[in-house]
């Protein structure tokens, strides 16, 4: 299962190396197939990428950009707000990523064990519903559920059962905000996250399970020797791919943060937002691009490191 996969070409050619030209001719059909993908990537990603040069300019969108060298990066290094946001971004998104993936895997495995097809269908539909609520709505609903007043479901219950005397201001408290952030993220995205794992699970050959049953393997053993190895590839791919997005964390934080918790919640993109809209002056795209560029570089490093690690452990990277 874990051996290197080979494409049709490799199969036909055996394993001996061929001269490049022969190889190019052999693969011409594939190059042609890749052409549209390449064009899409160039038009929608590579052409706009020339914009990162603004990181070295002062540019407010009206006058011609003025070259300022590394000035923006120097300022960035000096601002405590930037470093705070930088640390928060990594902490919040990595923990969120691990938690969400873990919960999604567990939920998929549990769904896989359900015996009633109807029940499975119903629960599956229910758990993925939260994904369709926009973050704004999610935040307003949870602000209410977690409200410290008697309108807040959680606090009302806790007060009733005598766990606490007075409602806790979950979203307005520095110590409570992060746990709440993780919980709400798990609530919203776990169900949706299972889709990819369930699709993988459905690709496992049922004969394998039957054979295992005949050998007298119990549920745990089947999970350990059949299900998990099949899932692990997808899990690692999902984790590493999501690492690339780690630095992009924005909307979920933006709608949930408030003045009291900024030290714990401000992430790079909310920092950029504040710089853009709260400065009382026209935003300097140069500075925000510089911050964005730094975020991209860190994301890039994370992916490369994990890809290398994956290559070491599994023999190949994710792409």
């Amino acid at each position: 299962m874990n051996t290197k996969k080979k494409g049709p070409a490799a199969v036909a050619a055996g394993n001996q190396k061929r001269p490049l030209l022969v190889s190019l001719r052999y693969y011409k059909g594939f190059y042609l197939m890749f052409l549209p993908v390449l064009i899409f990537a160039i038009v929608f990603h590579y052409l706009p990428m020339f914009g990162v040069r603004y990181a070295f300019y002062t540019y407010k969108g009206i006058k011609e950009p003025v070259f300022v060298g590394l000035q923006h990066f120097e300022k960035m290094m000096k601002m405590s707000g930037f470093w705070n946001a930088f640390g928060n971004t990594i902490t919040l998104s990595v923990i969120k990523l691990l938690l969400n993936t873990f919960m999604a895997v567990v939920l998929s495995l549990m769904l896989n064990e359900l015996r009633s097809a109807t029940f499975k269908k119903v629960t599956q539909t229910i758990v993925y519903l939260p994904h369709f609520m926009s973050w704004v709505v999610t935040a307003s609903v949870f602000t209410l559920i977690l409200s410290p007043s008697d309108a807040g479901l959680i606090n009302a219950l806790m007060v009733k059962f005598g766990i606490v005397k007075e409602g806790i201001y979950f979203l307005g408290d520095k110590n409570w905000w992060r746990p709440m952030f993780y919980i709400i993220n798990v609530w919203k995205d776990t169900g949706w996250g299972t889709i990819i794992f369930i699709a993988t699970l459905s690709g496992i050959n049922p004969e394998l399970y039957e054979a295992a049953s005949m050998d007298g393997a119990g549920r745990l053993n089947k999970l350990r020797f059949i299900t998990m190895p099949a899932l692990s590839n997808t899990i690692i791919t999902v984790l590493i791919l999501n690492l690339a997005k780690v630095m992009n964390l924005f909307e979920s934080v933006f709608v949930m943060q408030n003045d009291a918790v900024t030290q714990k919640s401000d992430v790079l993109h909310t920092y950029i937002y504040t710089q853009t809209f709260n400065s009382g002056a026209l935003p300097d795209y140069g500075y925000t691009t510089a911050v964005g560029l730094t975020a991209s570089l860190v994301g890039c490093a994370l992916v490369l490191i994990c890809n290398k690690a994956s290559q070491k452990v599994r023999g190949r990277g994710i792409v």
Partner: protein
Amino acid sequence: MKKKATAFDYALVVIFILISIIMIVPIYKVLIDSLDLKTAYGMKLFPERFGMAGYVSVFTNPTLYKPFLVSCLTTVVGTITGLTIATLGAYVLIQWKMPGRTLFANLMLFTMIFSGGMIPTYLVMKTLHLTNTLLVVILMPAINVYNMVLMRNFFEGIPDSLFESAEIDGCSPMGIFLKIVLPLSKAALTAIGLMYAVSYWNDYTHYKLYITNDNLYNFQMKLRSVIMGSDLPHAIGGATENTVKNAAVIVAILPFMIIYPFCQKYFIQGVNIGAVKE
């Protein structure tokens, strides 16, 4: 295969009922508020003053059906375009020995991490005369490396022997792609297609940035303006601003509640690769 239900199975059912309740409660709150003509701040089990006025005002909005069609069109065309790009890319990326494969893979990965920013992207689209066309909202989200890599992961699960036999039968790369790879990847196509469809259906940002012609607005744009517009309390047939807003949220979820059960069979049945394998 059929065994008696064990305690484990019952426990599982109980756990899932609990999970379902947790998942439902916040959505239930929105649903109740959408049916309640009385502005409410707290949570309740049933609407205090039941009425469908919220839904009526969402649907009687005179300019709503066109955006709905735009949404349907872009979602269908976009999902197909997206799946085409993702599967083509994924298929090429599993050609491990192809010269340049690593370069291509890295080129793709790079796009996930770096972006030129809002203004440069806008200027490129303007230069290519893509602004204010539906092309931009269809094509731009179609290239999604995340989906492409997941797709590639599924393709890897297809046994080599299938490729071998197809090649011996004289199939071209495109032939193998169409006749073997795609039919064997129904679960993956459904899962990733669903992901594409959701992102097209929920798309708001691309419209906001690239479309200023309101004939080309999609449903989400319209819903937002219903939500924003109702920021000033317009009592429509007894509906409060709150009712209208919540009804709009429910309406936006609805299409996928309907579609999802149809997709599910592909996950549950799965693709029995073993049966094809000789």
